[in-house]
């Protein structure tokens, strides 16, 4: 087996020193510290859960969703790459023949057990089809019964990205 090597970024001398990056970071921290200390009324603490955070970044890993193709159908081809990559072994897929002519294979069952998931994002990285994402912005998932934490294909497909895209 061969390995395909993807080029890495951050190879310059400055990047390798680390210290400039550390000081740049400390500068941000200290400036917030000084600002908050001088004006306590504007501190960015929110009263969660009454107030929900609005500043979720693009890279935040929330609950998963299954994405759609342009024609609105499921994008996933049940290749099991995500299930193979998943360290928690919490993705349960059953493949089936797809008969609508768009593709050959699709998932009959696609379940993620959120209680077992460690939100590592490995599944998103592994997917060759961009069919699974963790950009729903859903960061707290509450349910009363164990089995309600196991999301099925329909639930995952119904989730939207926090920017509203399907």
């Amino acid at each position, binding site marked *: *087996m*061969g*390995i*395909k090597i993807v080029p890495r970024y951050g190879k310059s001398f400055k990047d390798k020193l680390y210290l400039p990056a550390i000081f740049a970071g400390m500068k941000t921290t200290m400036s917030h510290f000084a600002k908050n200390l001088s004006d306590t009324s504007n501190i960015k603490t929110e009263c969660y859960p009454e107030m929900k955070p609005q500043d979720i970044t693009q890279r935040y890993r929330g609950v998963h969703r299954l994405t759609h193709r342009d024609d609105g159908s499921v994008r996933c*081809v*049940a*290749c*099991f*790459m995500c299930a*193979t990559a998943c360290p928690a*072994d919490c993705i*349960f897929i059953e*493949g*089936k*023949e797809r008969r609508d002519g768009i*593709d*050959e*294979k699709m998932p009959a069952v696609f379940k993620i057990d959120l209680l077992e998931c460690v939100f590592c994002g490995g599944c998103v990285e592994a997917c*060759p*089809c961009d069919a699974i994402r963790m950009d729903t912005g859903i960061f707290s998932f509450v349910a009363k019964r164990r089995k309600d934490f196991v999301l099925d294909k329909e639930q995952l497909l119904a989730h939207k990205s926090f920017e509203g895209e399907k």
Partner: protein
Amino acid sequence: MATITVDGKEIYANDNALLIEELLANGINIPHFCYHPSLGKDGNCRMCMVEIEGKKRPQIACDTPVKDGMIIRTKGENIARVKRQILELELINHPVDCPICDQAGECSLQNYYMDVGLYDSRLDTAKNKKRKHVDLGANVMLDQDRCVLCTRCVRFTKNITKTHELGVVVRNDHSYISTFPGTKLSNPYAMNVIDLCPVGALTSKDFRFHQRVWFLKPEVAICDGCSRGCSLLVDHNKEKYKDDVVYRYRPKFNKNVNGYFICDYGRLSYKKENENRLLNAYIRGMESEFEYAILKIERLLKRYGPKTLFLVSPTLSLEEIYRVRTLAHKLDAAINGFDDNFDEDFKDDMLRQSDKTPNRKTLKFLAINDSKEDLLRDLKGKEFVLLIGRDDIQIIKEMGYDGSIGVMNYRDFKEKEKIDIVIPIVSHTSRQGTFINCDNYMQFSSCEIQKNIQALKVLEFVETILNDGRVTCEDVWEGGLEDEEFLGDIKFTQIKSNSMKIGR
């Protein structure tokens, strides 16, 4: 004998044999698509290039005879460049849809490309599109896009089955594999083309999309479909929160028994390991506790003693039949192995045999009666018949028997209320054992899949009564079976790893 040097290492090879054969036999990795030991060389894929000293250009190893003193290089930048170029050509029209391809994980093209591929395509013209998922018949699906035109499948139907269903049609890079118009692939060995196809162009309709191959765990067993007893690889997997499931059988190479192939009937017989299993013990049709049922059957054996008949199935292993015979002798009871599971239409001149049980020869070697007349005689005066590995009670009913009956089998069946006691036993791939095929070849089936169902092993059952601590095949061999005359000098350690022919 010739001495050749491969990558600086000397190896001994047969004079005039094909170079690729000798290299593969010495564990040297030579990529190849069109060559297959059962089909011979064809020289069309050019994947097997090696450098031979004294030759200007790289040569194909599959069409070069071995000569003494040859110096060969299979590695290095030169040869890697050649392979990379061949693979680049191979991939010009290939769809590279590995995510939905069932072959991914056991695909030669994928493996070779990961070894020496170019990785980044230089192509900006559209690919030739052909037909995907063409149902060829006989459970074989063809994807013309993925085909590398090695013609292994064509040569299989031409040279091996001689049914000539497949051919290459149209010229140059529009060529594809097809059946002749209006015909389908249909022969009892058709599914072997799925294993022969080095890429995902031919896949099994039966296995397709049920499991990715890298999850499967292969185990060695023998087919119990007929008395040929082909060597098998049993691919099974236990998914999280589910029971262990057998997903497919594949042929395992065995030069004495089945060569590289198995028949489709045998290949699909894996289904009986998963479906329609007997899951409970029953006493007169009522579900019973497993342990209680075992105690009950022990009591019945004690009560009836010499009035018992053990009716064993020729699907049981040598060890199992031997132990039941020991038990029968101890109780002074009778033992019989009559079974009329023959099908003359099933027999052909490749592998399939009319005797559809895998171990009838064992009955002969162990001198156990197996004719109808013997059974009629053995039944006389019996009050308890215990069927082991079978549920065909009509055989004894038709002979007028109406005493107590016990059944130990893996398969569910109807009318359990007519039977005094029913106990589930493990199925063929869940216990180890030795089998003797129609040509007296003895093989060991080592596959022992742990299923999450309550089922008894016959060896354990006999041990609970005889109480001599012999529960594994090894114990049984060492505890007397090895002394059987027909086995000659064969020891358990030998049979474990090799198939062996036994006397007569």
